[in-house]
């Protein structure tokens, strides 16, 4: 199996902050907005270097989304920053009407997604945001897996004309993708070729999928691991090519199985190449307080859960 090295644990939100800093230096049209969470979103350097291009909105996310939509009128490329919960559910109608339906070039950048937000508990741990955002016509939905990929994604979305939802997280996790890897929206990344099962993972679950694949290899199971960082538009070609070879699939995401990556993959397979599928995802539940590791374990979102799902799906082949 191909080896991946953790270059040093780091948080994906810092990847966003670094990407935004670079955009501040290279693209004069990029502006940033925040609803009182500058430190959490790692936006300090951008603000320090471009004070006139930063808008502190205060605790008023609905207003932030509207202001972002308005800033595009005049040629700006607004990046909004707040937690995933307040970036989506709280402001769904504002995004729907003023951004998505109005075809506005707004980048909705959402940190602290999923249960790995940890101790703050379920009020802040959104597990429905991918579904909410992917249902909006024209919305691109991206969930990068580590620091490097989040930084690259942040830079890449500035070049895409149209609304984007960029989802990342709070905890420090393995940073294993190459720092110079180009980010292509909608293009899946083949991390490990295998023949028995396809593991399709997004976000924090990608590293867990690699650990699982290694353990499975020791048991004689050859797992193909694909990193789907873009949930919409989905790289259907890559998925179908792999599942036609392996005959079964496990999808992995830090999100409810309703509305997430798994359902998008299932739809693709149902329409083109039906195959057994298992979902590593939360099971229509809210989260709770705890450490990220405890929550990943309890809600079945770690490498052990992926291993178990692979064993289960292989029996259904």
């Amino acid at each position, binding site marked *: 199996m191909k080896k991946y090295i953790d270059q040093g644990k780091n948080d994906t939100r810092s990847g966003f902050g670094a990407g935004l800093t670079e955009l501040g230096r290279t693209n004069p049209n990029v502006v940033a907005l925040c609803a009182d969470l500058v430190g959490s979103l790692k936006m300090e350097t951008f603000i320090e270097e471009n004070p006139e291009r930063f*808008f502190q909105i205060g605790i008023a996310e*609905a*207003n932030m989304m*509207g*202001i972002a939509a308005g*800033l595009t*009128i*005049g040629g700006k490329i607004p990046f909004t920053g707040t937690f995933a919960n307040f970036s989506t559910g709280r402001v769904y109608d*504002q995004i729907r*009407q003023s951004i998505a339906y109005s075809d506005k070039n707004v980048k909705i950048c959402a940190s602290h997604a999923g249960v790995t937000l940890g101790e703050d508990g379920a009020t802040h741990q959104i597990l429905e945001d991918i579904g909410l955002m992917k249902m909006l016509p024209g919305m691109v939905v991206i969930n990068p897996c580590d620091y490097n990929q989040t930084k690259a994604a942040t830079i890449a979305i500035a070049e895409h004309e149209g609304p984007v939802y960029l989802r990342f997280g709070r905890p420090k996790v393995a940073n294993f993708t190459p720092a110079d890897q180009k980010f292509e929206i909608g293009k899946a990344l083949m991390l490990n070729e295998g023949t028995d099962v396809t593991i399709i993972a997004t976000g924090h679950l990608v590293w867990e999928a690699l650990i699982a694949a290694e353990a499975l290899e020791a048991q004689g199971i050859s797992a193909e691991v694909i990193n789907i960082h873009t949930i919409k538009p989905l790289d259907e070609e890559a998925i179908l090519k792999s599942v036609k070879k392996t005959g079964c699939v496990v999808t992995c995401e830090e999100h409810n199985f309703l509305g997430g990556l798994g359902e998008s993959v299932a739809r693709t397979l149902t329409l083109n190449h039906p195959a057994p599928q298992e979902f590593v995802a939360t099971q229509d539940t809210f989260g709770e307080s705890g450490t990220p590791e405890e929550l990943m374990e309890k809600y079945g979102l770690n490498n052990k859960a992926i291993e178990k799902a692979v064993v289960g799906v292989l029996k259904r082949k």
Partner: protein
Amino acid sequence: MPTTQELQDITVQTRRDIVRMVHKVNSGHPGGSLGCTEFFVALYHEIMELKPGFDMNGIGEDLFFLSNGHISPVYYSVLARKGYFPVDELNTFRLIDSRLQGHPTTHEGLPGVRIASGSLGQGMSVALGAAQAKKLNKDSKLVYTLHGDGELQEGQNWEAIMYAAGKKVDNIIATIDYNGQQIDGATDDVMPMGDLKKKFEAFGWDVLEVKEGNNLEAIINGLKDAKSRTGKGKPVCILLHTIMGHGVDFMMYTHAWHGKAPNDEQLATALAQNPETLGDY
């Protein structure tokens, strides 16, 4: 600049357009549209500094955002007669495959419209963003908005109202269509909003009132006054006292015609009260 008579002619023709549009499809919102006809005519034909043609960014020209999108009939008529799109297209209002959706949108590429509105309370935030973009672009032109008074019951407005004053967005003129009516009745019965002037002032806005909100001269004077108050560190608000349904006697002073179309007989009455001036579409 158009003469007073010319503005009056456009106003009467716009009223005809409004009642004909909603009558044809037996749906739409004539009451608020009629109440704001003079405001739209004054704004587009006398006040706003506009460039020929339409581009979304609107750099170097004044911008207008309609927050209470349900009064699309007046918006469409004024845009068409200002030259943004063919007047004949008013025939397609609310029909399948039309650019003239029930509520305004950019989605079908209708020139003149820069944001979708209809779900209430979102327009001021958008306008503030556009106003901030103008400042970044060193563009000295202004941003105008219109909101229903009942619409102010939506909380997002007050986030925006707080922001505008707090961040000194002084290149915006927000007009409130102060007709005292909403779908379920008088605003004072549905959800009393108290003293709006004091509320805006308490939030830090410069507020002026136009008592005769259906009088072209009064509106023009009010808008000119408002314009003179921009650039002084405060956002500017106009409380425009209008009469819902103005210009069609049986639609006036009631919320009954908020979202209801006239029948054939009522249409004939309405048109008789507003004789053709510029030619029907």
